[in-house]
């Protein structure tokens, strides 16, 4: 309302009709410093991260220039003979990771379902703590466990698998499993046993993601399934699993990424061998990360460059897998509600 005593509005002050005004936020100096520095830190983190890939990539250039595409096809890793290639270790990395996933994901899913669907309330919080503890235990301790406790028992299992399922190529072993005195050392330090040990690291990660997703299942759908079926498995099958599909896939992919990068457990258990082998029960194998960790100490600068190139390949693979996992989780119905 303008009256005689009301101040006249200046031209600039008069708001334009129908359009929203831009508001100048007069930030104080301390606020501008605050905003600027926190943004700066964020970008710094971004830069450091990017530079990891960049540096590894830069270091790889001489190697690629020298060996060319044969870097990917050569299986030997003998720097002194100028034969370097990651074909064997790449296959080994994937094999160990796959064994870890095949063993670990069903176990993780069962554990997640147990926690969300079957466990009584008091047990539930203990189980969640147990899973978190499992994730906190360092891999060096799982390596000790894997070598000294798991392996002596698992080699019998490996032998049994090659006895009865040896007609499947991956389970074949070069020595005779049916011999009265069987060659025990042929079944140790294998991809199989290493994979089982790596699964210990993979299970808590996948379980946490899946559990978070299963917990989010809408109560209404659960009740509908319960009223129709009366069984817990009916509810799981009809509602929980379809709803949690994004979390299951995403969690498995995250687990895969972890398994691909696992270093110490592999270093401690597997016995290095550089050929493409699909017989997972047999001794011998190698993964990229164990290759780097193992050969690091006595590497010349040229060999170092080769190791870094292998590291770069690992970086690209794990980054790709993890991006894929994050996308799947985010896009799915359950993922929209979850933070991984």
């Amino acid at each position, binding site marked *: 309302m303008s009256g005689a005593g009301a101040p006249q509005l200046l031209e600039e002050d008069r708001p334009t009709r129908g359009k929203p005004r831009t508001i100048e936020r007069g930030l104080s100096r301390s606020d501008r410093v605050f905003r600027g520095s*926190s943004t700066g830190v964020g970008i710094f983190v971004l830069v450091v991260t990017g530079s990891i890939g960049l540096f590894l990539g830069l270091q790889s250039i001489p190697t690629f220039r020298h060996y060319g595409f044969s870097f990917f096809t050569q299986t030997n890793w003998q720097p002194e003979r100028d034969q370097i290639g990651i074909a064997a270790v790449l296959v080994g990395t994937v094999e160990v990771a796959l064994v870890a996933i095949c063993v670990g994901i069903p176990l993780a899913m069962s554990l997640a379902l*147990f926690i969300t669907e079957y466990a009584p309330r008091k047990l539930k919080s203990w189980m969640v703590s147990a899973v978190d503890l499992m994730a*906190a235990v360092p891999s060096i301790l799982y390596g000790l466990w894997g070598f000294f406790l798991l392996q002596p028992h698992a080699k019998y299992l490996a032998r049994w698998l090659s006895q009865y399922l040896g007609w499947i190529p991956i389970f074949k072993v070069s020595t005779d499993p049916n011999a009265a005195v069987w060659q025990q050392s042929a079944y140790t330090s294998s991809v199989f046993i290493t994979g089982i040990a790596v699964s210990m690291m993979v299970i808590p990660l996948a379980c946490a993601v899946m559990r978070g997703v299963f917990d989010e299942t809408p109560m209404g759908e659960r009740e509908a399934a319960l009223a129709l079926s009366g069984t*817990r498995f009916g509810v799981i099958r009809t509602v929980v699993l379809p709803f949690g599909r994004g979390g299951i896939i995403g969690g498995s992919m995250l687990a895969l990424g972890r398994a691909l990068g696992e*270093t*110490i457990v592999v270093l401690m258990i597997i016995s290095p061998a550089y050929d493409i082998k699909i017989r997972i029960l047999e001794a011998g194998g190698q993964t990229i990360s164990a290759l780097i960790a193992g050969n690091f100490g006595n590497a010349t600068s040229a060999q170092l460059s080769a190791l870094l190139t292998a590291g770069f390949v690992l970086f690209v693979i794990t980054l790709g897998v993890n991006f894929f996992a994050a996308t799947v989780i985010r896009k799915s119905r359950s993922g929209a509600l979850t933070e991984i």
Partner: protein
Amino acid sequence: MTTFSDLDLEPREEGPVEEAPERVTRRPRRVRRTTFDDYLELGGSFLSSGALVGVLYGHVFNMSGVLGFLVLWYFAFMVIFGLTLKITNPNPLVVDKLVQATIFVASAVVIAALLSALIFVVVKGLHALGHLNFFTHNMAGVSPTAPLSQGGIFHAIVGTLVEISVAVAISLPLGLMTAVFLSEVGGKWSNLVRTVVEAMTALPEILAGLFVYVVMIVYFGFPRSGFAVSVAMSVTMVPIIARTGEVSLRIVPNGLREASNALGGSEWRTTWKVVLPSARAGLATALILAIARGIGETAIPLICSGASSFTNFNPFANPMNSLPLFILTGFQTGQSVAIERAFGAGTVLLVLILGLFVLTRFLARDRKVKR
């Protein structure tokens, strides 16, 4: 207008609502889902399958080893249990119970594996821990095959503590600022930063170590030292603090921020005095999780430092041993005494991690009480 309280809701004559004393005697009924038959089915299948496998195991299947026995027992149990259930139950219930049995067994397997790992390390390490010199001496001048009464892991404990302290000094401010940036400030970079930070939480530790090695040690000529290890640790710790920290900051109710702003607080003041203190427990948890991750890393000290046997308090000069590295090198010697020492060091590491873990549980509980 009659209000609710105006209405006389007490029964005028004997109504269906009973008097108070009678109510006390009413007891809820036990609705038991499992009948005696169910226990018989379960127990019977369990025992009979065990007996069956036990008899066949050695003779027919020509196997040895506990693992194989357990695996076969599980399969036999499923078959026998399933057949037993089919006699009296409709199909959906049979499937439901078999699934339940499988889930129970699988969960028990995982928990048993975890417990076996923890107990195994401690049991094997007890022998070394019984010697006081284990905690107070280092391995200078002591051969790896020397008996347990000589030498110790003092240098490794010191190394771990020094390295993690420097790592925290680096990663806490960086991680916290990043979390604040993502949660409070935002802006057009925030989505990219968040995505990258999330991807970085999954970076294999050996790549972090390799990166620091290439940049710091090869390019800039730093020595392999405790500081290099700390920097590499920070690379893995910052994303954890940033990501978990951001979640904790997000949870702080917006009403608090609005109230502070309404009182004239600038963004910086609001964050520092209101938001961060409210999220204290969550941020502490984030830090502790990052620490637990950092002290357990082995590939990083392997690459960025060396396994020395001397006690070294200076992170900037000379190699610095740490608990995980000590364990690894002990293991790799293959000597039984060295391995015993390694288990002892493993137990110390485990106790450290467990302590941190209990701390996070304690903090989380505290927060719930305050709410």
